[in-house]
């Protein structure tokens, strides 16, 4: 096994034991990046060289100098007998929505193309303090608006390492692609409606959305403040647990950050699933897609192989001693996307008000008559279509005359979505579940440009994931197989408030019990190419 295939746990262990230098870990990661990633995303719209078509393009910017300094520091600590941290020498990527002091943080948007934050995001700082090496800022949908990473202003947008003609998912597409392509061992992403879990499913990696407030949002450029969750992306469950351990915890700089104590997530993995009550819901077997004329929600089947993967996972867990509880009603799941359209857009429109060309970032170079002109032109030129769309929708749904019907109502529907879960998890209720098992997505990855432009279809990629965001619950997507085209399938575990330990346990047990399944020995196309070279 080559070094860049090692898990984060393994790299950290070897570095801490002095068996591997951080510098060597860094070089390995850089070599892999140079081999598979191709050019980084940029604002220039020059045509892509054909050789670049099969590259991953996970990054907007590489931060090699920074990583070298960090590697040096880790190695110095090792030789000085100081503790280098739990992630010592582990190469990581950071979704370019998190601020990193002194280094351009763009949100994949022209409007922040040159923004150098004067401070570093809390979860990023925690990873740095734990000895991680930051290889670069991963590409994403502009301001995290999207489920394919195609809306990035920095082209080319990332490709799926399993099939570079397809999308890695989004908005944390660069993050999941960089992990799947073995460029880094871990990535820090964000999940607002499914933006960690859906791309994790598409890219065949583990993606965890923690409970809302479990990880500080300080330094996360906000999309939807009541839904955004930073979280770990890794190639296996233990690595995700390790990274969660590092980034979780209260932050006085984030008022919504929780004071509920963290637990030992790695320890919890060993507890197994004997007696664990795992729920399956008939409300997670279909999409409920609207008719554009009438608004009627029509049921659409999800990809057959995905349903099968979920069933298979259930039987694996049953064999391990878990109790599978069928027919758990979660009837308001079908309102997840409608509610999301309202709540997230209202918050996004407001959060994007600050981008006006006055204080930082892009300002229109055109001669303007007055300030209003400056602001309008700056925003028109600086924002992409998806950002403009979300702003306009948000304005509409919160404006006088409409707010009561839409925004206030959506917040109430959010309450009943939450209530469904509370009933399912209630220890003295009918189902008394520990975790709920569902598909992560309705389909596997789609081709580039197939869905982009149809914003409703694009948003519905998140139907299975979004309800956990509305309810604030922790949820994890783990690889659950491959479809006939060798595209990854993700299965999702959802747990009660602050019970990341339960969903990690379930994911880990399933992972370990299926290590020998045939699909696990298939590698992403981008890595097979490399071997073939």
């Amino acid at each position: 096994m080559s070094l860049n295939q090692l898990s984060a746990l393994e790299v950290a262990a070897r570095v801490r034991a002095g068996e591997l230098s951080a510098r060597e870990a860094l070089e390995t990661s850089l070599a892999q990046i140079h081999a598979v990633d191709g050019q980084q995303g940029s604002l220039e719209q020059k045509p892509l060289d054909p050789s670049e078509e099969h590259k991953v393009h996970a990054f907007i910017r590489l931060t090699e100098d920074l990583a070298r300094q960090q590697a040096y520091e880790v190695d110095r600590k090792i030789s000085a007998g100081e503790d280098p941290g739990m992630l010592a020498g582990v190469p990581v990527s950071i979704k370019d929505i998190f601020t990193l002091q002194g280094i351009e943080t763009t949100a994949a948007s022209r409007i922040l193309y040159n923004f150098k934050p004067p401070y570093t995001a809390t979860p990023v700082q925690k990873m740095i303090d734990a000895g991680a090496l930051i290889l670069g800022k991963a590409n994403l949908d502009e301001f995290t608006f999207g489920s394919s990473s195609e809306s990035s202003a920095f082209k080319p947008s990332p490709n799926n390492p399993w099939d570079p003609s397809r999308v890695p998912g989004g908005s944390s597409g660069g993050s999941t692609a960089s992990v799947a392509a073995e460029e880094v061992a871990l990535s820090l992403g964000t999940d607002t409606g499914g933006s960690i879990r859906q791309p994790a499913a598409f890219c065949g990696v583990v993606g965890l959305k923690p409970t809302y407030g479990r990880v500080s949002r300080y330094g996360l450029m906000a999309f939807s403040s009541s839904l955004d969750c930073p979280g770990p992306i890794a190639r296996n469950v233990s690595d995700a647990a390790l990274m969660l351990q590092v980034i979780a915890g209260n932050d006085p700089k984030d008022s919504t950050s929780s004071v509920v104590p963290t637990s030992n997530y790695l320890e919890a993995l060993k507890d197994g699933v004997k007696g664990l009550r795992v729920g399956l819901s008939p409300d997670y077997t279909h999409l409920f897609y609207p008719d554009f004329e009438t608004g009627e929600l029509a049921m659409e089947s999800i990809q057959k192989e995905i349903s099968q993967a979920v069933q298979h996972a259930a039987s694996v867990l049953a064999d391990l001693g878990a109790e599978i509880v069928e027919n758990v009603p979660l009837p308001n799941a079908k309102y997840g996307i409608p509610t999301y359209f309202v709540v997230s857009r209202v918050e996004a429109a407001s959060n994007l008000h600050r981008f006006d060309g006055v204080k930082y970032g892009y300002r229109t170079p055109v001669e303007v008559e007055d300030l209003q002109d400056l602001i309008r032109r700056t925003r028109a030129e600086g924002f992409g279509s998806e950002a403009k769309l979300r702003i306009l929708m948000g304005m509409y749904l919160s404006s006088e005359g409409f707010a009561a019907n839409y925004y206030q109502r959506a917040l109430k529907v959010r309450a009943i979505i939450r209530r469904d879960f509370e009933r399912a998890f209630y220890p003295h209720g009918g189902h008394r579940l520990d975790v709920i098992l569902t598909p992560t997505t309705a389909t596997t990855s789609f081709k580039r440009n197939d869905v982009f432009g149809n914003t409703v279809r694009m948003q519905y990629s998140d139907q299975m994931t979004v309800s956990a965001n509305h309810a604030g619950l922790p949820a994890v997507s783990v690889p659950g197989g491959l479809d006939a085209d060798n595209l990854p399938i993700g299965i999702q575990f959802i747990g009660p408030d602050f019970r990341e330990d339960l969903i990690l346990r379930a994911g880990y047990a399933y992972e370990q019990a299926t290590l020998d399944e045939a699909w696990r020995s298939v590698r992403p196309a981008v890595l097979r190419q490399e071997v073939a070279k």
Partner: protein
Amino acid sequence: MSISKISPELFHKLVGLAALELTAAEGAYLLTEMNHQLSSVNALLQVPLEDDIQPTLHGIECQGAGPRVDAWQPFPTPSEILAGAPETEDGMFAVPDVKGAK
């Protein structure tokens, strides 16, 4: 059942409120997508809601650390903040004047 749609007039007003400027093509595309999205949002209007359902802002009951102590902690590098501005003058952020201001 017919669903509410955004008219071009209202759309134009929203564009102004949002401090945006759109080409005709962009405007047409966005308005179409907005109305498509409204067809999904429309489902919310049909959901039966009991009277005692409260709007929920965060999903979970947030248990935060509470308000902070009133103690001065200066930011170490305010000059870094100013340095990122597109235009400054005399240590202040500089912009053209507001139209119709005094």
